[in-house]
């Protein structure tokens, strides 16, 4: 076949489109076309009887039972843990609400919305509270954005590359359309005093989780969400109210939001001092890092998939940046020696998942596939070697290095470091 390939079998999609290459399949005439007697029309079982009736709330096919969140919790405190989005099984950019990752510090509260209030107090002239019924009447706005836990991908700091599906490794990130009320609108109603510099947000769960957020961010693009992917937020994602802080650490996107305390200083809560801070080799730790830096991952093929034929594959993956839009994703099939631009599926939105794709020809060669994201600020996703050189191995949070999948001659996929 004559088409432009670079090392490892990646195909330049521009050339591919121009030439409209067709990968030939050896054609042979099926037996039924040559049969002497006319054949009966075929009907499957489900074409031969009425289907099921209507349902009040649709569920995935029973044949898709394997597409689930992988959960892991503290055995002594079952509400303290994580569930990961199965990124390896999903396509497009929207995470189904039931598969959005979870991080709870002490379980999912079952909040009665009629008893829930959002209060705003502190350095304000007019301390106020809002019922959910009232909030539902406010002007709303929607944004499709990712939420990524600051601790996502932390297995990347391990000495040896973890061998686990991509969702169990990087699945503390998900992307939804969130709909709610601009936070600024509610803050304006409370009338911020000039000394207001920080906002302390608190959830109404059993851990009363709280974090501090700079007022500049709070009044720019944050909003309090009532809806996720068109329906009211699921309990595990913050029902009835969640603070959305686009592009910033997941922990700031406080679920079950009940209280906003306006202050001139951060509260220095456990989750912004002892946790969600990144220890450096110097012994000092980075605090209030907030922004989730650009990252990309090939989700297909990835660990756990098995290549069982030679020929054309489409490499597919996700990229996102807390600083804005993804402008470029490059893919390499030789562990970063040569790169080719992947196609970015539109729409490419700021602070949102971007799906990338690139064709790839596999003929049994052992290769290492990886992707590298660039965002609109020019920031380029680092290699693991670069990240570790900068940050050491004990920072735990904010791991965003390039991820490498080694494909053996047998089509087996494993995770390797650069």
């Amino acid at each position, binding site marked *: 076949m004559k088409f432009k390939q670079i090392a490892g079998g990646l195909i330049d999609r521009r050339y591919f489109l121009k030439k409209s290459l067709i990968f030939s399949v050896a054609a042979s005439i099926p037996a039924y076309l040559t049969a002497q007697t006319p054949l009966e029309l075929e009907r499957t079982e489900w074409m031969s009887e009425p289907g099921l009736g209507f349902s009040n709330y649709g569920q995935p096919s029973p044949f898709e039972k394997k597409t689930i969140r992988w959960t892991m919790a*503290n055995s*002594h*405190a079952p*509400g*303290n843990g994580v569930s990961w989005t199965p990124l390896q099984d999903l396509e497009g950019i929207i995470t189904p609400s039931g598969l959005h990752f979870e991080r709870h*510090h*002490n379980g999912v509260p079952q909040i009665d919305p009629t008893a829930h209030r959002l*209060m*705003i*107090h502190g350095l304000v002239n*007019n*301390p*106020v*509270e*809002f*019922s959910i019924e*009232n*909030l539902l009447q*406010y*002007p709303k*706005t929607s*944004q499709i954005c990712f939420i990524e836990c600051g601790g996502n991908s932390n297995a990347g700091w391990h000495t040896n590359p973890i061998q686990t599906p991509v969702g169990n490794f990087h699945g503390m990130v998900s992307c939804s359309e969130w709909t709610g009320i*601009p936070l*600024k*609108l509610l*803050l304006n*109603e*409370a009338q911020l005093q000039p000394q207001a510099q920080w906002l*302390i947000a608190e959830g109404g769960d*059993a*851990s*009363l989780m*709280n974090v501090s957020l*700079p007022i*500049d961010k709070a*009044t720019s*693009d944050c*909003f309090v969400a009532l809806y996720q992917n068109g329906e009211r937020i699921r309990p595990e994602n913050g029902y009835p109210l969640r603070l959305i802080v686009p592009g910033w650490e997941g922990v700031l996107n406080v679920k079950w939001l009940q*209280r906003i*305390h306006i*202050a001139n*200083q951060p*509260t*220095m*809560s*456990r989750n912004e*001092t*002892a946790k969600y*801070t990144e*220890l450096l080799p110097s*012994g*000092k*730790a*980075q*605090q*209030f*890092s*907030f922004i989730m830096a650009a990252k990309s991952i090939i989700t297909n093929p990835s660990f756990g998939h098995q290549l069982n034929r030679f020929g054309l594959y489409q490499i597919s993956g996700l990229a996102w940046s807390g600083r804005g839009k993804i402008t470029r994703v490059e893919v390499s099939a030789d562990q970063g020696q040569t790169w080719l631009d992947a196609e970015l599926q539109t729409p490419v939105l700021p602070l949102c998942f971007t799906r990338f794709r690139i064709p790839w020809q596999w003929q049994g060669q052992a290769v290492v596939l990886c992707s590298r994201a660039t965002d609109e600020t020019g920031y380029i996703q680092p290699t693991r070697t670069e990240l570790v050189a900068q940050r050491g*191995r*004990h920072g735990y949070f904010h791991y965003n290095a390039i991820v490498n999948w080694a494909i053996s001659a047998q089509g087996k996929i494993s995770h390797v470091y650069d």
Partner: protein
Amino acid sequence: MSMIKYGLIVFLSWVGPSHAGDALSPMLGKPLSKATIQQRNFTVFPNGQGLPVGQGSVSAGKQVYTSFCLSCHGFEGSGDSAEELAGALHRLTDNPPDKTIGTYWPYATTLFDFIRRSMPMDSPGSLSTQEIYDVTAYLLFLNNIIDHNKIIDHHSLAKIKMPNANGFINQYKNNN
């Protein structure tokens, strides 16, 4: 924008992002009384603002710890299923480091605040203010931050200088 007949509002000019908060508000918030705010305000600041009146001792704190914390946090603050609280064997520059209250936490007020809001996990909110001050004192003692006979209270807690008080680099301040 201007109001027109029938109450419809026309946006004559539209600048900026879609949720800049410039939309009109129905103003449905209800005023909050000082008493209500006081009842619901859990915030404690590193300068001690928000701490309730009270005090605690190391010896009483050991009893509280044994009753409510030990089953998860282990003997003297380490070695069980929950976070390592004390007994660091390594410094923050070692490989691996030990991030305990003594080696890592920058403020003693955070200890009181986190215990009050989140602990114990099976019955949060069950400890009295006295018990929270007591167990805070015990944890500070276990980390060699206060002596065994020291009493802490709502004035003195914020004044305790934690070993890692200067261990943090404010990335937001540095980048803005």
